[in-house]
């Protein structure tokens, strides 16, 4: 251990890790954390099961799927439906999983008392948040890519087995699908981070987040909106409704996943989601910088 200690003032007041170094640290944390793998692995897995595996099994049995005749069921699993099949789960169960991930990441820093350790090493609070959000975006991007890759592989296998046409979507459609999927995923993740930070813990944040995604939004959309004009207007501003609308637009309007409803058009949905993402990040930064850390 070195005995040399600089005189006060000899070193800059704030020497700490750069943003890339902090993103690297956050990626290390994410990589080593089992919960990351469970939550991020579950989403493409469920996606695959519900958009390809179950419809294909129902087709091979010659039965109709959700009232759709077998031939059309097969068509829906083929490569040209890649974007729809890779993203259709994102607004609902994907949202629930990613909101949980965000809440877990932010909330457990309070439970473990690790936030004070991170800040104790010198970075600004906003730099810490930026590093954490960027690392989250990076793993979400990787997960969206994995979802596309898995869906593509299984679709290609189905097309091969059934000697059906393998028409892949164009590069533009894929890029829009990736971008839109990442926007939806990041918005859910950031809303989870906001909840975990606001509530300074995981349990309540996850609970409230899940009730919102799985119950409140669907009650507003299915029960309240048809009855009252106010709720009809309100639903157009909900994150889940906009996520569903964006995915439906990217998928060419033909998505039968429950919870995915095209209420607003795709462009508007993208803007609303971006606004949610920006607001969640800004509010988290505000909470983080304004509050005492005890």
């Amino acid at each position, binding site marked *: 251990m070195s005995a040399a200690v600089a005189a006060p003032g000899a070193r800059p007041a704030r020497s*700490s890790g750069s943003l890339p170094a902090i993103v690297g640290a956050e990626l290390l*944390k994410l990589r*080593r954390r089992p919960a990351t793998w469970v939550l991020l692995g579950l989403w493409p897995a469920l996606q695959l099961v519900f958009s390809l595996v179950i419809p294909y099994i129902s087709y091979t049995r010659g039965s109709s799927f959700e009232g759709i005749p077998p031939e059309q069921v097969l068509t829906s699993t083929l490569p040209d439906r890649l974007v729809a099949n890779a993203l259709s789960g994102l607004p609902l169960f994907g949202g629930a999983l990613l909101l949980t991930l965000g809440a877990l990441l932010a909330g457990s820093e309070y439970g473990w008392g690790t936030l*004070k350790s991170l*800040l*104790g090493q*010198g970075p600004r609070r906003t730099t810490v948040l930026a590093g954490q959000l960027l690392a989250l975006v990076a793993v979400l991007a990787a997960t969206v890519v994995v979802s596309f890759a898995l869906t593509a592989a299984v679709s290609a296998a189905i097309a091969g087995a059934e000697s059906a046409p393998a028409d892949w979507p164009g590069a533009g459609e894929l890029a829009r699908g990736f971008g839109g999927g990442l926007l939806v995923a990041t918005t859910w993740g950031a809303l989870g981070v906001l909840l975990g930070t606001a509530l300074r813990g995981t349990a309540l944040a996850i609970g409230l987040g899940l009730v919102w995604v799985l119950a409140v939004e669907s009650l507003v959309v299915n029960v309240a909106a048809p009855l009252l004009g106010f709720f009809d207007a309100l639903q157009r501003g909900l994150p889940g409704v906009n996520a569903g609308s964006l995915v439906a637009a990217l998928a060419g309007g033909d998505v039968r996943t429950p919870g995915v409803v095209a209420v607003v058009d795709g462009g508007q949905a993208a803007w609303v989601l971006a606004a949610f993402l920006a607001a969640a990040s800004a509010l988290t930064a505000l909470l983080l910088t304004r509050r005492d850390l005890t």
Partner: protein
Amino acid sequence: MQTATGTVGQRPAPAPPSLRTPDAEPVVTTDRLTKRYGQRTVVDALSLQVRRGEVFGFLGPNGAGKTTTLRMLLGLVRPTSGSATVLGRPAGTSVAQVGALVEGPGLYPYLSGRDNLRVLARYAGVGPGRIAAVLDTVDLTDRAGDRFSTYSLGMKQRLGIAAALLKDPALVVLDEPTNGLDPAGISEVRTLLRRLAAEGRTVVLSSHLLGEVEQICDRVAVVASGRLLVESSVEELRGLGRLVVDADPLETAVAVAGRLLGADRVSVVDGALHLQAAPGETAAVNRALVTAGVGVTGLRQEARTLEEVFLQLTEPGDPPPAETPGRRPRRVGRSAR
């Protein structure tokens, strides 16, 4: 618990505090530092100084406001009023040279000890070389690959200290670093703190383990209910010993001693007069009593352990001196007399 006898003078490497920090510049200065949570004032106009190179003990009973004060020094908690300067800069902006362990080690249970330090080293902007160095310092190199959640309490605490040392800080702030450690662990931490001081670092350490503070600290501040009771060197604090006087008539003796020393330094225990007085005051007390016609049959100075001083200072029934309006906290020591 360790006894008080002669431990301060036995420090191995560093010179005695009076030589080590003669009039060293202050590393930490707080000026009427105050924190209120709602109606409750948790830290109340605390003004103290930590000098460069010293091991400073921050003592007080549970809930005294020690942790809250340290959090304000680190910029984790914003003061309600007053200010704190750390290494010449407003508290919280001098983090580059401050290493801290506040209220237990905050580390990731699912990461290994080494990976925890890896994460923190990236946050600190220090190279991976520091990781091996601090692991070695706290003697955890062998277990560095194990998950933090599998560590014993003492190992966790040591890894927390290692994390505080990553930046090679000039000032180390440790909040009850021996919390939950067994005697062997306490002794290890003590050795470590001595080493840090010998390397020229300033160490601020909060504790309610008086034996620990007595053995390693140069100076201490005692706080209770957020107020500073005493800031002095350990010897000086202990030096304000107890003078036990067997006197007759006792009532007259109480009155005379009260006039001489102040009523709050006089009490009667088991028919004897107990006075809070420094050794140098013995003669004056004796003279005053005899002049007043009191028969003095016994007069002895009892050295106190820091524990006794602490208990007396923080006794709930005894209003702390700082509570009296306009009266400053007692600063025992040559400079204040």
